[in-house]
């Protein structure tokens, strides 16, 4: 249980810090008032309407990306797999970019389901490309990389051919939580909730899958159906995250490795711990993104990469 106290504490501290810091400096008293009293004026708007939903969204985005990464690394048995590299977020990004390009006045609440559909379509492309009477983990990983570069190229194409106004509408694609509020939380929460629950349900099966195809089959696991289910849940999680946060790199890749270093390969522990650590990573990164250069925001992906990459390097060096 010791392995859980520290990550949970980190998360709680992150929430407190995230609510307390911002471009406007508020005393602790004002933060509490803003949180619990409606007539606290600007403090209420700042803490309740601006900071709290953003903190909650950061938690969910991080949890979704990390859980998705843990699932994908397990199912492909490839340590480099993550929703970004395997084309899931790229599919979501392209779908959203394309719709905004064709229909610049697209209401924000429709962007989320479209991005989600794109993530699922990306997953279907990866799965379809690697199917040859069955998918092998290696083909899955390679097809993922191919589909991801293909879809990313499409997104770049949409971006360079659009006007400044469309580009502004697409700025969330670069990764970040600027301007995210309660509406966005409402849109993403169901997808995220179902996805995270699905990931937990899948964790027992993940342990069997990670033994290798022969062993899993001899234990009576329906290999293809399980793989499809895992990829489906991973796509759901990636779609939920990309729909509000755009393309946030590194979280899905790094966090499962950190979790594995703490808890080992048992997916029943690995997946929830990945989700908790991912939530913390995105929350701390977003707090930095908001405050470091305030009032200018730093793109979230820059921070997650800057925090995540050295940590991964450290893990690689210390384990081998």
């Amino acid at each position, binding site marked *: 249980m010791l392995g859980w106290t520290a990550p949970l504490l980190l998360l709680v501290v992150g929430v407190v810090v995230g609510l307390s810091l911002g471009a*406007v400096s508020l005393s602790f008293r004002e933060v509490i008032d803003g949180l619990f009293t409606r007539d606290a004026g600007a403090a209420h708007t700042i803490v309740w309407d601006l900071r709290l939903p953003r903190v909650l969204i950061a938690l969910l985005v991080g949890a979704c990306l990390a859980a998705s990464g843990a699932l994908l690394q397990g199912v492909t048995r490839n340590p480099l797999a993550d929703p970004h590299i395997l084309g899931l977020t790229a599919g979501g990004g392209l779908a959203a970019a394309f719709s905004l390009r064709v229909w610049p006045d697209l209401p924000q609440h429709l962007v989320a389901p479209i991005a989600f559909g794109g993530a699922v379509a990306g997953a279907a*492309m990866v799965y379809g490309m690697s199917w040859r009477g069955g998918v092998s983990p290696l083909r899955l990983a390679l097809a993922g990389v191919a589909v991801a570069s293909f879809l990313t190229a499409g997104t770049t194409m949409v971006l360079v051919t659009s006007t400044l106004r469309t580009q502004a509408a697409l700025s969330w694609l670069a990764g970040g939580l600027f301007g995210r509020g309660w509406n966005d939380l409402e849109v993403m929460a169901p997808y995220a909730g179902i996805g995270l629950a699905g990931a937990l349900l899948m964790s027992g099966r993940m342990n069997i899958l990670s033994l290798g195809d022969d062993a899993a089959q001899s234990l009576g696991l329906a290999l293809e159906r399980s793989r499809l289910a895992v990829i489906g849940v991973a796509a759901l999680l990636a779609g939920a995250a990309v729909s509000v946060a755009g393309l946030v790199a590194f979280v899905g890749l790094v966090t499962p490795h950190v979790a594995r270093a703490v808890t080992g390969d048992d997916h029943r522990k690995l997946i929830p711990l990945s989700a908790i650590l991912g939530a913390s990573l995105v929350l701390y990164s977003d707090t930095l993104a908001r405050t470091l250069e305030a009032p200018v925001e730093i793109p979230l992906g820059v921070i997650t990469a800057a925090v995540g990459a050295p940590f991964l390097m450290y893990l690689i060096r210390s384990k081998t």
Partner: protein
Amino acid sequence: MKLHRFFAVSIVVFLAGALLLGACGGDDDDDEGGGVTATPTAAPSKAPSASTEYPVTLTDMLGRQVTIEAAPATVAALSPTTVEFVYAVGATSVTRSKSVAYPEEALTAEDIGPSYQPNLELVASKNPDLIIADAMLQPQLAGDLGALGIPVLYVGVGTWEDVATGLDLVGQALDKQAAAEAAAGELERVRSEIEAQLPDTGPKVLILNGTPDDFYSAKPESYVGALSEILGVTNLAAGAPDVGQFPGYTKLGLESIVADAPDVILAISAGPPGGQTITDALSADPAWATVPAVKNGRVHEISAELYLQAPGPRAADGLTELAGLYYPEVYGQ
């Protein structure tokens, strides 16, 4: 084999998508280009300098209905154009975006970051009664701003006429109608004074924006192009399709520019101050040497602030400067 077929199909889908993008490039840009096309709210026949009776409901320049309950004591403007509107009607803003440079008094207002990503915490911390957002730069923020529970009025400038519409809206919203009408009247006075002396034929003009290596030409649909249309010039970029990020701009090849022989070239150079400008580059490049504008020294650098970043109440300054550059013999320099 299935894999090959799948791959082929996805490539076809991809290319079809790219073609579709190219095809719809034309029409969605058209409605982005020509300024803010909302109908002006101001009833033209209203009594001069009426004062605003609150609550007042205005149709802003995104076509939204905005109700303001009482005369706003604190106003937060979020872009260079909107800040200038507020000061032009004699009010003050508690916020400004990073790039605001005019008027000087506005520099003491809280810097809320870049116009495309204003920091909403800082806006909320000022407890404004009214937010004035930019209809050209910030329409995508409508949802986020609405969440603050403060009325949001959108104004923006893409054409000469938009300036009067914006002044009128801001004047009504802030109960500064007399000042707004005076400012709009001054604009019209300057314009008719210039128009009274306008020669029958104008020069062939090219207005460039960008870096020396990569520049775009302003069409009549851009703001600087719209001001130039008033002055009766022949804009060599007219009728070309929109190209590049900025609506109302296109890209003309060097060959067609040389063939069209512009009499005047104006340039808005991007990049660090003190760096090489488009004007420098044109004068040094032998390919441009035969162009009349270059030969006769009629290549001029114009202000990015006045013509690109902060179109708005200073439109008359812009019009006067352009008139001088296009017709130095009539309007002097």
